[in-house]
């Protein structure tokens, strides 16, 4: 069976990366923004796994890195959501454009 070449996978991951970034720039809802960040992180994960699998199969660094990223992402998300909730308490909204009190 023919294996998928690395470039394809990298293409996917990059696409994912920019998708996430687009979402981050455009979405107004904080939760959605958080999700788009997760997308970026996942693209990174794909990168790591792919590199590890295709280029350096003898070592497992990439895989481990992925695992750690996933964990950290979870922690980050937790704190982020906590903050968002608290922000909702104070601002009565989770639209990023409502939280622009401090500027200039």
């Amino acid at each position, binding site marked *: 069976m023919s294996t998928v070449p690395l470039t394809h996978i990298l293409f996917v991951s990059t696409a994912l990366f920019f998708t996430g970034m687009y979402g981050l720039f455009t979405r107004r809802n904080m939760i959605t923004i958080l999700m788009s960040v997760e997308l970026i992180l996942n693209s990174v994960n794909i990168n790591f796994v792919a590199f590890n699998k295709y280029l350096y199969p003898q070592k497992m660094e990439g895989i481990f890195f992925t695992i*750690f990223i996933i964990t950290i992402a979870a922690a980050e998300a937790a704190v982020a959501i906590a903050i968002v909730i608290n922000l909702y308490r104070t601002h009565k909204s989770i639209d990023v454009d409502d939280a622009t009190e401090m500027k200039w």
Partner: protein
Amino acid sequence: MWTDFLILMKQEMAVVAMVFILLFMKLGKDRSNESYMNVINVLLLLNLILGFVCNREGILFNEMFRTNKLIVLEKNILNLAMLIISLQSWSWLKTHKHVPEFYILLLSSLLGMFFMISSGNLLMFYLGLEMSTIPVAAAVNFDLAKRRSSEGAMKLIFSSAFSSACLLFGISMLYGTTGTLVFTELPQHISNNPLQLFAFILIIAGFAFKISVAPFHLWTADVYEGAPVSVTSFLSVISKGAVLFVFVSVLYTVFSPLAKVWYNMIFILSLLTIAIGNLFAIRQENFKRFLAFSSIAQVGFILVGVSGGTDISTTSVIYFVLIYVFSNLAAFGVVSVVTSATGKENISDYKGLYKTNPALSWVLAIAMFSLAGVPPTAGFFGKFFLLIAGAGKGNYILISIAALNIIISLYYYLRVVKAIFMDANSTPLPSVRIPLMSKLAFAVCIAGVISIGVASPVYDYIYSLIVLN
């Protein structure tokens, strides 16, 4: 083996121990804030002292964790800053509901920085970085009821998440092109190929975000303004300092093959940072926001030093961070005392401060002079050496522009001094009682600001450590 382990990681261990002690105290019967703070201050002091005894260099977990005298020193500078901050936050915390949580957050972030500083591996570095960021984000939101506080926290967590994501992407590419994450192995594999350059740029961006280099600095001002003063000072001094340490070592060791590239990069970034920091600082009314931009400008000057790329540069950077700890914390200390007493945060509120609070005024003035780099305060020496280090490459456009920017920065620092001493004000701030702890903190800061500069042994010591490795 275990003794090794304990000795090499003593500072990390100490911090962990403090966290646990706090947890146990919390679990036990509820105590008064004072008791918490006394305990923690004593512990921090011990921790600081611990940093001076039996320092060894060594490597753990096959190069994941490395330490040596210099790293210990760097960590200890952070410890010192932590101690000062905790002393200063007394007047703010003593009426606060969640004292232990505050300390736990900051301490765990400190722990993260320690790991980051001694990391010998990109994975470890990433872990440390995140560990140092996330708790601070929570800490920024520590005044739960305040709108600005939560807004700042939101901005911090999102932008840091984004930046670390980019950093990770860079790391992944680096991994892909080199096949290793170990600092010592990376240089052999790094060359000028575009992918690696792109990865490098992403990583630089990640660093730049943490030390708020333009154009990655935009979160800084808002977060500083929103966060409680103590957290702001933590952000501006400790996290910045830590990242700077790592930045310098990573730049000089890991990316030494790209020296030419990063030199020019730093050149551009530093000028941009100084200019933007200054231009924004001129206009600020809120004191914390003002200090935020001033700190951005300071980082720009630090980058000038970094661009030198010699042992002198490293020394000057560390030296400057040390000085910066003292001078900046002195300023923040005054702000925190004044804010917690009167709730006033604007520079215009400080008009005629000298009539009512001479002591505070002098502390603030000296801090400002030090930040502006006016002798005989230490700031002068710090800036001078940074610029001289930057001149080491013979790039005089950089030096000239930086030097001329000192004038702008002088303007806004003197603006504060002017407000304190000269501007007439019918209703100056009431005379503020300075709690003992803050007094201690001020004493330490001023002593540092006055002495560190003139006392060359400090500089020589740092230099000797650097030459050692």
